[in-house]
């Protein structure tokens, strides 16, 4: 069952990493909680940034500067430069494997403007950009014969300590959801590509149900460090009733934001943190907020934004060709994640991280639209190649233990006196209210107390369903357990950062304080407890 490179998660980041590790000659195995094409990447709509200047003038330097500005001082310029400089090549590669990008009249890849960008820079495929990239990557993996095992849910990474006292990874334990059995996958290196943690906000999130930070929670348990966990992006325009995403490209194309009086109140194409706060301010005043794309016309909407029209009709019962779309900001993307170096490796040797679960320090305090799909391709390639290289030189030296804690047996003892779904909903509401678009010291502290109390009651919860076969009640409980662990870390980081920066806005400390806080928060586990500190 051994592999050179084990990839956990099969969204865009995981599949690119798998392909590149395979191309580098490694024996690759991919494990996936659901099926690859069901990943969060399928939901990305707006586009992938690259300064191609296909539509109007643009430059890599402008891309770098826009990204740095939006990051509010806590991006790593070297990593941002790598990201932006590699972007044209990344898009060319996607084009070469068959991604159906929309085209301009002169047969170039079409580009549009997203928030915070000084030029139309996002390459797109209608508003199905993520879907078409993900499916093409999946087809490519099939063409290359990459092994993908579906419905395997990550429990923990398996680590060992070398003679020089270095912690290194040696595989992972997973739950085979179909059989209910725990499986051990031994591997010289592991790439974690399991996505973000926006589902802590439960129904107040655009994300798929699986975005529960499983890989991030397992990484910190396994000895890796997390960074900048307090930075969570709220997307300005989700459908009011269902939290379903309406792409930024609707505003990029000229859509307006209106309040109940029909007035515009903000620059619709500012970065997401600013627009989300402007909407939130209006809502605090008792206004309703609407997205208006009626003036773009039916033909344009059907050509460029077909999915938006379909979703608004289905979930809000309105047709945006003729009517205003009621919107609200909800949790959309988590900037924080597993700390990695510029080589994508974590503090645990041989454990790499990529995609939303990783923090490559390219988004800083606020991500720009169109940079996350880009990150998957650029760093996915790098993580895959580096993991393959690492595995070739990997010599364990000593006998390895493949011991894991028996989480499932432990959970079997839980008493199910409290319905964890109620607590999950409670935490979602609590986070939206207290750890949302604006935060305040006292509110954060009371939220932390609530989370700690619920965490202590975990043994009184547990799955009601005791079946071995395909027990989603059990999987959802472990997901909930992971989000609780991350919730404590997020809150500790958010309390400590007594300033406002990007997506972290403190109503009790409204100013960016570079003297004290132009640093990264680092969360780690030591002696069975979590700690948080700052590092440059």
């Amino acid at each position, binding site marked *: 069952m051994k592999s050179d490179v084990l990839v956990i998660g099969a969204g865009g980041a995981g599949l690119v990493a798998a392909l590149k590790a395979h191309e580098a000659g490694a024996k690759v195995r991919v494990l996936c909680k*659901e*099926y690859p*094409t*069901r*990943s*969060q990447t*399928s*939901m990305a709509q707006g586009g992938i940034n690259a300064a191609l200047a296909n539509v109007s003038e643009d430059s890599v330097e402008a891309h770098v500067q826009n990204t740095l500005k939006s990051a509010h001082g806590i991006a790593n310029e070297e990593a941002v430069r790598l990201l932006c400089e590699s972007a044209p090549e990344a898009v*060319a590669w996607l*084009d*070469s*494997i*068959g991604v*159906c*990008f*929309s*085209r*301009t*009249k002169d*047969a*170039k890849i079409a580009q549009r403007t997203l928030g915070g960008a000084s030029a139309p820079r996002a390459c797109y*495929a*209608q508003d*199905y950009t993520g*879907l*078409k990239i993900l*499916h093409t990557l999946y*087809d*490519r993996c*099939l*063409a290359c014969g990459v092994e993908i095992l*579906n419905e395997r849910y990550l429990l923990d990474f398996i680590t060992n300590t070398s003679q020089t006292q270095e912690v290194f990874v040696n595989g992972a334990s997973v739950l085979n959801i*179909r059989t209910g059995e725990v499986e051990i996958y031994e591997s010289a290196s592991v790439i974690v590509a399991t996505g973000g943690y926006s589902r802590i906000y439960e129904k107040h999130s655009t994300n*798929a*149900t*699986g975005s529960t930070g499983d890989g991030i929670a397992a990484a910190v348990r396994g000895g890796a460090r997390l960074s900048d966990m307090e930075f969570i992006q709220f997307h300005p325009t989700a459908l009011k009733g*269902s939290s*379903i*995403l309406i792409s930024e490209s609707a505003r990029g194309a000229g859509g307006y934001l209106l309040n109940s009086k029909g007035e515009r109140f903000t620059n619709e194409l500012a970065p997401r943190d600013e627009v989300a706060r402007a909407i939130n301010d209006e809502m605090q005043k008792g206004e309703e907020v609407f997205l208006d794309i009626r003036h773009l016309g039916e033909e344009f909407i059907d050509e460029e934004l077909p*999915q938006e029209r*379909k*979703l608004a009709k*289905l*979930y809000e*019962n309105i047709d945006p060709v003729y009517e205003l779309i009621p919107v609200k900001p909800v949790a959309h993307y988590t900037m924080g994640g597993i700390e990695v170096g510029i080589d994508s490796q974590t503090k645990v040797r041989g454990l790499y991280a990529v995609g939303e679960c990783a923090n490559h320090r390219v988004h800083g305090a606020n991500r720009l639209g169109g940079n996350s799909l880009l990150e998957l391709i650029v760093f996915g390639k790098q993580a895959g190649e580096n993991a393959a290289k690492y595995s070739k030189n990997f010599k364990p030296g000593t006998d390895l233990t493949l011991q894991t804690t028996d989480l499932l047996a432990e959970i079997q003892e839980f008493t199910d006196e409290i*319905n964890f*779904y*109620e607590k999950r*909903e409670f935490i979602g509401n609590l986070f939206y209210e207290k750890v949302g678009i604006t935060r305040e010291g006292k509110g954060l502290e009371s939220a932390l107390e609530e989370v700690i109390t619920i965490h202590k009651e975990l043994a009184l919860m547990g*799955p*009601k*369903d005791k*079946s071995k*076969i*395909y*027990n*989603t*009640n059990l999987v959802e409980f472990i997901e909930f357990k992971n989000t609780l662990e991350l919730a404590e870390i997020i809150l500790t980081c958010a309390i400590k950062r007594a300033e406002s920066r990007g997506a972290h806005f403190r109503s009790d400390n409204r100013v960016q304080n570079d003297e004290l806080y132009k640093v990264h928060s680092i969360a780690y586990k030591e002696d069975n407890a979590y700690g948080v500190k700052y590092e440059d």
Partner: protein
Amino acid sequence: MKIKIQRYGTDFEIKEYEVDLQDATLLAVLNEIKTTQDASLTYASGCKSSVCGSCSVRVNGKEVLACGYKVKEGDLIEALKNVPLIRDLVVDMDKALSFNAKAKAWQSFVSKDVSLSQDDEKRNELQSDCILCGSCYSACPVYTVNEEFLGPFSLTRVWKYVSDARENAPQEKIETIQTNGVWDCTLCNECTLVCPQNISSKADIEKLRSKSVIAGYSDPNFASFGGGFGFDGSPIF
């Protein structure tokens, strides 16, 4: 509102549930049942916005995405057909998806610097909207007679690549789909009727048949009966 769900696990039974939700999607109703009434109810879901393809089920016999279907009183919810049932509404898609690889539904070579026009891109824009939900596969009647049929979504995917200006070995793809492929389809159009993305695999299969004929292949069913026409001039199948 009452709905019925075909359960499959320790028991195989139709269970009735009552929920107090208005104008709700089926997925919202399933979530309500699972979180408040019956934690053992098993189904798949993901994006809740009709793009990940996780939650396809059958309602009163017709394939829908649970997140995109508004529930009506008395609806009967069942798992997809033609695929192994794992539990309740969850099916094993591995074999169905394996037909993508059997059909070689990918671009044959990495092809750099091929310039695509707007018309080139439009040619398979619709086919590249596929979310692999499996609705077409479930609705396809061919599987009752041929379990190895490459099937609607895989053949749509082949058309997507064959029709792409970047594909430089389309003949090889056409050859692959001669067995258990385009000629096994009955052109009944059930796949088209259930596709949540408005794709017509039937139409794509017809286009692949035309390409096959141009490439010198013919309908083996036709050939095995000697082909041609009956005495009254009607085609013999």
